[in-house]
C-alpha cells in the first residue's frame, strides 16, 4: 500500500517554512519523486518567499501560504534562484496574488516572460541583502548552477543555504520519504538518486571535474557557517556535517555514471 505523504508545510528552522509538493518521474521503469520546493522566510518586518515551485504547484503553495501568512509580517519579496520553470513557474501567479511583492535577484528573462510585472522587478547582485527584520536574505555564489544567471540564497538568521539545483536528488515515495528531511529518510540511497537527477537535469556534471565544484562547495559552507540547507529539489538537510559527505559522494557518482540510453532504460554501468 502506498504510504501517505508527510504533512507540509513544515518549519525546518525557526521562521523558515518548507512549502510545495513532489513531482513524480519515471526513470528506468522506477518511480521517483522530486521536490520543486519553495520556502517562506519570516522576519520581524517582512516575509520573503524563496522559489515559487513548479507551475503545477501554485494552487497548493497558495493554500499553504494562506494558512501561514495571517498573523505574520507582510510578504514583501520573492527571490527566485533562476529562470527555469520548476523554480520560477509560479512567478506570475505569486506576483498577481500579492500585488505588493517585489521580485528580487537576477532579472534576466522575467520581463520578457512577465512584462506586466517588470515595474516590480529588482535586480540584485552577489552579496546584496534584503533586510527582513532580525534576519536578511543574502545572494551568494551559486557553486552548482543550472543557468549562468543562477544565484543561491542565504538566510543570515538561521544560517540556511538555498542552493537551487545544488543538492538535487530524488526520493522514494514508497518508503514514505515525502515531507521528510534527508536525515530522516534512512533508506534513501543518495548516490543512486543523485545519479538519476544528474542524468535528467545536470548533464554538464558528466563532462567536468566535479571535485573542483565539491571543493568550492565546502569552502562556501565553511565560509557562511551553514547550519541547514534548503534545496529546491532534494530533501532539506538539517545536519550538514552528517549528510553533506553523502551528497558529495552522490555528485561524484552521478558525474561518473554514463548517460542513460535513448530510451532511458536505466542507469548505465559505471564507465
Amino acid at each position, binding site marked *: 500500500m502506498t504510504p501517505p505523504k508527510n504533512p507540509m508545510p513544515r518549519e525546518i528552522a525557526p521562521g523558515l517554512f518548507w512549502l510545495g509538493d513532489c513531482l513524480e518521474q519515471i526513470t528506468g521503469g522506477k518511480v521517483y519523486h522530486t521536490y520543486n520546493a519553495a520556502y517562506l522566510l519570516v522576519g520581524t518586518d517582512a516575509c520573503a518567499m524563496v522559489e515559487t515551485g513548479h507551475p503545477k504547484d501554485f494552487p497548493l503553495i497558495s493554500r499553504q501560504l494562506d494558512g501561514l501568512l495571517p498573523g505574520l509580517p507582510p510578504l514583501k519579496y520573492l527571490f527566485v534562484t533562476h529562470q527555469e520553470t520548476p523554480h520560477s513557474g509560479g512567478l506570475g501567479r505569486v506576483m498577481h496574488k500579492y500585488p505588493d511583492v517585489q521580485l528580487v535577484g537576477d532579472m534576466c528573462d522575467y520581463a520578457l516572460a512577465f512584462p506586466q510585472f517588470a515595474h*516590480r522587478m529588482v535586480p540584485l*547582485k552577489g552579496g546584496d541583502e534584503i533586510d527582513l527584520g532580525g534576519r536578511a536574505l543574502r545572494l551568494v555564489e551559486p557553486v552548482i548552477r543550472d543557468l549562468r544567471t543562477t544565484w543561491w540564497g542565504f538566510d543570515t538568521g538561521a544560517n540556511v543555504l538555498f542552493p537551487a539545483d545544488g543538492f538535487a536528488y530524488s526520493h522514494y515515495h514508497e518508503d514514505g520519504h515525502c515531507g521528510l528531511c534527508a536525515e530522516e529518510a534512512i533508506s534513501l540511497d543518495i548516490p543512486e538518486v543523485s545519479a538519476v537527477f544528474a542524468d535528467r537535469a545536470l548533464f554538464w556534471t558528466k563532462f567536468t571535474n566535479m571535485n573542483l565544484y565539491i571543493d568550492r562547495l565546502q569552502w562556501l559552507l565553511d565560509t557562511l557557517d551553514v547550519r541547514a540547507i534548503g534545496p529546491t529539489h532534494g530533501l532539506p538537510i538539517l545536519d550538514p556535517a552528517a549528510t553533506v559527505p553523502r551528497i558529495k559522494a552522490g555528485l561524484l557518482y552521478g558525474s561518473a555514471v554514463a548517460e542513460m540510453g535513448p530510451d532511458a532504460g536505466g542507469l548505465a554501468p559505471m564507465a
Partner: protein
Amino acid sequence: MNAGTGDHLATLAAPARELGSAVHTLVEGRLYALQNVFGLGGAASAYPANAQGYSVCNCYLLKEGDRALLLDSGLAVHASSLISQIARLIEPGTRLSVYPLRINEFMSVSNVEALADAFDLEQCYSSNADAALWVDFGGRSDRPGAKADPVKTTLVKRAQRLHVGDEARGRALEAFQAPIRLIGTRWIYDEATRTLFTSDSFSWEWSLEAEGPWFLDGRGCSTTAAHVRSFLLNTRYWWLEGGDTATLRKKLAVVFDKYDIENLAPGYGRVMRGRDLVQRQYQLLDDVLASLDRSVVQARYVDRDELR
C-alpha cells in the same frame, strides 16, 4: 552590501514591446522562421551579461497539408505578434501542434496557453508525460469558471521519428536529445527542408541593430572562433574549459555526419542558410571544443560573474 528594505530599490523599466518582428521564409509553404526582437544589455539568460544590441526569439512553423507544427512557443512579451504571424501563414481549419524544445524555459513554453486559446491546438509534444502541467501558468486555468481543458500531450522518447500530419502521408522529423546542452533539450532534423533546429545552440549571431539582419548566408559571415569561445563560456557552457569535450565533439559529429543540413535554425539569433555556412559554423564549434578539452587546458572552478 545591503540592498535595503524595498523603499529605495530600483526596479526595471518595462521592456519595449514593439522592437520589431519578421517572418523569414526558408521554404515557401513549408517552413517559416517567426522572429521577434528583444534587447540584450544583460536582459536575457541565453546571452553573455556584457552582450549589447539585439537578438530575435525564433519559433519555427512547419506546414504540411492541413497540419502545422510550431517549434517553441516564444516569450510572452511577443505573444500578440507571434499569434498574428501564425494567423497569416496557416489556412482556416489547419490543426496546430507545438513542441517546446526546452520544457523548463520560458522561451519554449510561455505562449502555449495563448496558442491554445487562439488556434485549434491538436497536441503538445514533450518528453514529459505531464507536459500539460508544465505549460499551465494560469492564463486559462485560473479564469473564473474555467473548464478543465488541459493541452493534450504526445510523448516523445529521447530519440524518435515524428510526423507533421499522419504517419502514412505526413512529413517525417527526427527528434533527439541535443548532443551538447545545459538542460533537457531536443534538436530536430527536417529532411524535407534539410533544416536542423538547434534550440539554444548556434545562437551566437546577434546584431547591434534592432533591424537585424536576422538571417545569414555565407557572404555575410565573419564569425571567429574567439567569438564562439567567448559566447559559450559566458552563457551556458562555463564548465567546458578543461572538461571532456572530446565526447561532446563525437556526439556532435554523429549529427553532422548523419544529416544533410542546408539550414541551421537556432532558437535565438540569426538563421543560417547554405551548406558552406553550416559547415563553417559547425567547424568553428568543433575547433573551439577541441581547444577547450582537458587534454589541452586544465579545468578550474569558474565564478558566476567571471567573463572570459
